[in-house]
């Protein structure tokens, strides 16, 4: 059964990826789709900066600008950052806990295809009458007033991709609870796995409020219900609450995995175990917990009153404590270590000052009375780009370089990697640092232009110049990726030489069953412990035996496709004769596929012991 190394035609490869349930291939799918949307969102960001480079610019029109800013935010959060985070979770987490796959491989595939079709649906709005234009927050009064189908694309598209995310989160939770290798106790789990665990819990609790909010919006717009219609007793503030009860944990859903990736990098390239591991775990859990208690700080100016504002202000400040613990732990991981400045390490090192800058403005924003000035100004824009770009995007770049060998078996070029790093770092600070001051000088956010003579010209021009650097950095990364894949120089198990956790104990990329024999975990940084004792692999925890594997399936693709079709039907139902038919057809496809899945027994297959013994020894755990 060692089909892994066989050469296949393009059609066969495509079919393999359309039907795969292997977490490593799904990770690659997430990486490609997320990367595509990242570039799309980046182009939208460039249009924004071109438009705002000079006052009274007419590069894009006012209405079109609102579409661009909405799609930039929505794309970057839902379709780029989250899937890219999911790519690394899928690629690495099962390996880190010594599992052969996630708990529900079929659902893993379903989660990806739901996200993918939701994202495609959302972006088709560009060609079908206009994109959503009420901001990524889509506040209800403006969303209800929007005349095009843009908001419908937003609500339906996010609903579909959100379902995929929720499924993915549940899957990761179950995987980490149930599928850890022998000896892998909770307090021996690598930090990235811990981050995945807490993030998945956040997804489980944060996405339902969004789902509810989106359904209310869909019902209002499509069936004339009046949840947000003030004239009929509705209330638009409810949307703000629902959105931010989701929206605030969402930023932790993004940043915690980033923290996880950086925790791995600091330990690996300092050759030192993570300083204060237990307090890191505790801080991660605490951030996740507090993340649900602070949503109203996005609504300080909504008029909730001084009591609510004061409580949420203090709660928000409290989050700074566990975050501070993490920052110091990372620095003391490097303290006394042996630091090697590889590309991933450069990103991690640059992350500390960048993220601290974003974090401290977060505390400033928490001060409710002062926030009345910052709120919805460019100060906020600067703040969240400092944490999301300086935290999440840096981590994604770092993670891409770090895990590229594990995902593809090749190393990205280090020189080009460092070029990307320096260009992006300079561009990032050039673009966003000045925006703090633009906000304080009175520039509101989400404006399509500004008039001359208000003291805002210089700052905006500098900001736009910075964006060019980031664009070039991304292009260099793309060139790097293409060059690396063309050269295709394969690397060994532990290409960085300092791997500490289980994923570095097996081949790059790992065989489709990951571990020939499940490894025995004897402590934190299991692989490092073995290396220090002079062994070059893990001790197996079980005798060589048959491995049960799931079959590939095309059904997840079909289920998601059905919802994609149904969404068009739902949207055009009121104004066309065929809308209802398409809605029914789409739902029939989805429900039919689910029915087939339910009644068809799929027992998977076994890889026999004899075949495993034929495989190269270094692909699995050494016997």
């Amino acid at each position, binding site marked *: 059964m060692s089909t892994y190394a066989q050469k296949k035609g393009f059609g066969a490869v495509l079919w393999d990826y359309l039907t795969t349930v292997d977490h490593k291939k799904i990770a690659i799918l997430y990486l490609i789709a997320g990367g595509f949307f990242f570039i799309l969102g980046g182009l939208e960001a460039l249009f924004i900066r071109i438009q705002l480079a000079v006052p009274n610019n007419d590069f894009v029109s006012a209405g079109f600008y609102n579409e661009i800013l909405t799609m930039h935010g929505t794309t970057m959060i839902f379709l780029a950052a989250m899937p890219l985070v999911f790519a690394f979770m899928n690629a690495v987490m099962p390996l880190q806990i010594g599992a052969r796959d996630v708990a529900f491989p079929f659902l893993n595939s379903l989660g990806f295809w739901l996200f993918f079709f939701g994202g495609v649906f959302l972006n088709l709005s560009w060609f079908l009458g206009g994109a959503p234009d009420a901001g990524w927050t889509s506040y209800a009064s403006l969303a209800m007033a929007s005349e095009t189908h843009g908001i419908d694309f937003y609500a339906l598209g996010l609903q579909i991709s959100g379902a995929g995310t929720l499924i993915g989160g549940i899957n990761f939770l179950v995987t980490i609870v149930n599928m850890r290798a022998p000896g892998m106790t909770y307090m021996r789990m690598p930090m990235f796995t811990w981050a995945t665990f807490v993030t998945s819990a956040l997804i489980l609790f944060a996405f339902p409020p969004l789902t509810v909010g989106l359904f209310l919006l869909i019902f209002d717009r499509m069936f004339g219900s009046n949840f947000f219609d*003030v004239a009929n007793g509705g209330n638009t503030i409810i949307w703000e609450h629902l959105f931010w009860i989701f929206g605030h944990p969402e930023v932790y859903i993004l940043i915690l995995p980033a923290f996880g990736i950086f925790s791995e990098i600091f330990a690996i390239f300092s050759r*030192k*175990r993570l300083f204060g591991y237990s307090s890191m775990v505790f801080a991660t859990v605490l951030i996740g917990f507090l993340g649900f208690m602070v949503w109203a700080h996005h609504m300080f100016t909504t*008029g909730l009153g001084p009591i609510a504002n004061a409580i949420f202000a*203090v709660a928000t400040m409290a989050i700074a404590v566990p975050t501070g613990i993490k*920052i110091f732990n990372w620095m*003391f991981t490097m303290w006394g270590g042996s630091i090697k400045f590889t590309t991933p390490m450069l990103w991690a090192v640059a992350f500390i000052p960048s993220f601290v800058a974003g974090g401290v403005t977060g505390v400033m924003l928490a*001060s409710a009375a*002062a926030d009345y000035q910052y709120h919805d100004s460019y100060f906020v824009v600067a703040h969240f780009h400092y944490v999301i770009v300086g935290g999440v995007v840096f981590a994604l770049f770092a993670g891409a370089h770090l895990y590229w060998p594990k995902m593809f078996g090749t190393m990205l070029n280090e020189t080009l990697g460092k070029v990307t790093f320096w260009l992006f770092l300079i561009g990032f600070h050039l673009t966003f640092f000045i925006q703090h001051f633009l906000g304080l000088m009175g520039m509101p956010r989400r404006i399509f232009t500004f008039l001359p003579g208000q003291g805002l010209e210089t700052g905006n021009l500098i900001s736009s110049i910075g964006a060019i650097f980031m664009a070039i950095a991304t292009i260099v990364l793309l060139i790097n990726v293409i060059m690396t894949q063309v050269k295709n120089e394969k690397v060994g198990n532990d290409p960085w030489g300092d791997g500490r956790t289980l994923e570095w104990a097996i081949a790059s990329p790992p065989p489709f069953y990951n571990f020939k024999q499940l490894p025995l975990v004897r402590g934190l940084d299991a692989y490092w412990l073995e290396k220090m004792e002079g062994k070059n692999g893990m001790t197996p925890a079980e005798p060589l035996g048959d491995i049960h594997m799931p079959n590939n399936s095309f059904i997840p693709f079909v289920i998601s496709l059905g919802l994609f079709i149904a969404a068009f039907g739902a949207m055009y139902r009121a104004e066309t004769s065929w809308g209802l038919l398409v809605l029914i057809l789409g739902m029939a496809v989805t429900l039919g596929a689910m029915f087939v899945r339910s009644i068809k027994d799929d027992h998977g297959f076994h890889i026999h012991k004899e075949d495993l013994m034929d495989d190269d020894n270094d692909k699995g755990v050494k016997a």
Partner: protein
Amino acid sequence: MKMLAKWRLLSLFAMMALVLSGCGEPFLSTLRPAGEVAQSQYELMLLSTAIMVGVIAVVTIIFIYVIMKFRRKNDNEIPKQVEGSHKLEILWTVIPILLLLILAVPTVAATFKLADVSPMEKKNADGKTDALVVNVRANLYWWEFEYPNEEIITSQDLVVPTDEKVYFNLKASDVKHSFWIPSAGGKMDTNTDNVNKFWLEFDSKGADEAGGLFYGKCAELCGPSHALMDFKVKALSRAEFDQWVADMKAVEEPVQAETQTAQQGQEIFNNSCIGCHAVTPANTAPEAARVGPNLTNFGERSRVAGVLDMSEENIKKWLEDPEAYKPANKMTGKYPELSDTELDALTEYLMGLKVQK
């Protein structure tokens, strides 16, 4: 040691103040506070910035030391594997908590102070308030300011007396907007669901620096022309303000145009414009009937449509094609196309709409 810390904090404060002041224009910048609210918010900014710069300094020092000192010198070196340190970890848990407390106490105090609108509730014998109250109504791309005690309405240019608290009732008539006068103080949303209340104060010194005219902004995305939903604030001394109110109240009937051209303009106005735009300041018409800005004192305003400089040329441009200057505004297409002579007449009439003698 304590002295040193105190001295450092003080000098940090002074430096921050130096850096931050002189940032931005006096009529627009939050860093040039021109009133009690903006001032207390500015002080909170300085306090939080000082604390945060301190935090950044500590992190930066450790950070630079670490990445300089602990570079890999020898490929075979294996550093000591340290689990952690309870002492250090407690240290960097407790110190941030203390720093946050220093910030939290004034934050909570200021939050309550800025929310104190009790004088709005105190009615005097006439059923009015002693405090000056302005009802702000935000509309797709224009602002209406009603003075309920004085029973007058104006639009686009808010007129306020300096050196006293002005209380605001805020709401929106179509979608959510947000009312922001950066130099006078932080914003409050105008919701479609409820009336929000807050107060601001405009001090005469700040008003002088700003040339008597503050800039106001809509701070909540509200549609294509969100960026152009500006308004202005004229800050007058109490005596001047009283005079302005008296002048406004004196206009009971639409003022008759004087020149012949202006009279033609008034005729056009009465045929095409008066359905939306009132030229008397009384607040007797219901809100639903007040669909466009009140133009009683249009000729004295600082801008045309909130964004164009006040000039005959700009009025004509605006009347010819409002869509070009404020996309998706509600005025476009509501009146027949105007010929050049009609434009001249209408412009002359509008420029003549003045209440102050």
